[in-house]
């Protein structure tokens, strides 16, 4: 890792030294730090996410970037999912299932790099990343093409990415039916020569097309279509689901999933207000029969030339996967088995959420003099958001998981030299 970082630093020094203009901005440094905390019952999931990105422009038409980001995770995860029908006949189970949440820690490291080449109104780019955590490895590459038409009022962009991912799993009996598969007890021994662990492949192809359009000097829109096709092991390897009397098995979800989303955004500048209103809509459906809709509204206003403040709100609602049930062991709808698959994943259950937040930005751009005597630009951003998740059917052994709050805090610092 240290070797890679030194190579990265050398590349940026070379890029900077190739700059043709002493006055042109050569290097941009961006760093961000995010905190995510949620406390549904006893999980207390805490994630700290630092990142740093260096972007260099060795010539006017070439831009290269490299960066690192991480997720440092601690909390607890439910290892065995049961529903109310099962809990009703096993009254002593409820505290066990909730307290059986296993403590976890993880450290996801991501190294990434890429480039963009611009010629006239057209840009091409490419990049890659390597991500590693205790139980998951990912190698991904992406390419991008963008063009501007009609006096720069229209921008069309195509993005494609492919992921080669591996997830750790326990070695299963090859002849065992899914209902006899056992969950991974821990990530200890993953991606080593431990004979009790193995890896399962996941491949992801993602394609996105976007059309940005300036309609008036104060109004522009963007339409985006995203398609993603996933093939491979998509269950939580650690989680078991109670599927019958005394029978629990590792989650079992389909190997294939096709996901599609359409998003529409509109930005409107309000001159008298000295700010902008941003509206976003998104519709989503996938081959697991999850439908979702999302509305975003953000209003940002200048208070002086360098400071601006924004408030934002978001409403999100989704249906559950066609095979999702809160209790596969029985009971009346929406409980009961739903075909051959079973999952304890609350993200696949029907729920809605509301998010609200604020964002404060201080931004300075060099005029006749550089910012603090040495920077072309400087920006500090602080954002705080609160999400209220409301799970309509998901329970922990019959105990509802409503009013689950998540708290997000993000700080960003950017400087151009």
């Amino acid at each position, binding site marked *: 890792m240290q070797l890679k970082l030194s190579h990265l630093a050398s590349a940026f020094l070379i890029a900077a030294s190739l700059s043709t203009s002493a006055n042109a901005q050569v290097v941009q440094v961006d760093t961000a730090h995010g905190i995510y905390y949620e406390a549904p019952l006893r999980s207390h999931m805490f994630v700290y996410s630092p990142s740093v990105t260096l972007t260099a422009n060795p010539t006017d038409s070439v831009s290269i970037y490299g960066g690192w980001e991480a997720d440092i995770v601690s909390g607890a995860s439910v290892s065995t999912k049961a529903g109310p029908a099962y809990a009703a006949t096993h009254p002593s189970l409820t505290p066990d299932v909730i307290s059986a949440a296993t403590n976890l820690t993880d450290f996801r490291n991501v190294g990434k790099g890429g480039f963009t080449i611009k010629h006239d109104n057209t840009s091409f780019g490419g990049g890659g990343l390597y991500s590693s955590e205790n139980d998951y490895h990912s190698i991904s590459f992406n390419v991008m093409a963008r063009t501007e*038409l009609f006096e720069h009022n229209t921008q069309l962009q195509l993005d494609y990415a492919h992921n080669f991912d591996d997830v750790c799993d326990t070695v299963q009996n090859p002849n065992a039916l899914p209902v006899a598969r056992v969950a991974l007890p821990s990530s200890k021994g993953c991606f080593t020569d431990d004979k009790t662990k193995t890896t399962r492949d996941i491949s992801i192809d993602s394609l*996105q097309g976007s059309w940005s359009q300036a309609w*008036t000097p104060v109004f522009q829109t963007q339409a985006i279509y995203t398609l993603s096709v996933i093939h491979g092991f998509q269950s939580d390897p650690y989680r078991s689901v109670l599927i019958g009397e005394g029978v629990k098995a590792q989650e079992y979800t389909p190997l294939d999933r096709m*996901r599609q989303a359409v998003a529409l955004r509109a*930005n409107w500048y309000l001159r008298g207000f000295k700010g902008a209103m941003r509206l976003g809509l*998104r519709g989503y459906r996938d081959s697991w029969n999850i439908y979702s809709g999302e509305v975003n509204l953000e209003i940002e206003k200048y208070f002086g030339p360098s400071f601006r403040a924004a408030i934002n709100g978001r409403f999100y609602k989704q249906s559950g996967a066609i095979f999702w049930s809160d209790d596969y062991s029985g009971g009346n709808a929406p409980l009961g088995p739903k075909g051959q698959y079973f999952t304890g994943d609350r993200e696949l259950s029907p729920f809605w959420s509301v998010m609200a937040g604020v964002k404060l930005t201080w931004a300075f751009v060099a005029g006749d003099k550089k910012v603090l005597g040495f920077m072309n630009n400087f920006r500090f951003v602080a954002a705080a958001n609160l999400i209220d998740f409301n799970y309509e059917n998901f329970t922990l052994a019959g105990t509802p998981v409503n009013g689950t709050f998540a708290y997000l805090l993000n700080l960003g610092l950017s400087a151009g030299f």
Partner: protein
Amino acid sequence: MKKNAFLFFGLLALLFTSAACVTVRPQERAVLADPVMQFEGDPIIANQLHHAIDNREGSFGGSGVAGGGCGCN
């Protein structure tokens, strides 16, 4: 189904062609270039937010395709 598809792509083509008639001249683009008018004004913070939310919902899309791993368990 075919009729709906024709209607959708017809409307899309009509909308796209109408974009050619739009003339926001270069000297009128100052506001459009303002940071508050960008679709991803603070991309790094926006990426962190999308990453946190996408891993806790059953859906995704509309905000880029590059990424790897979850960091969520």
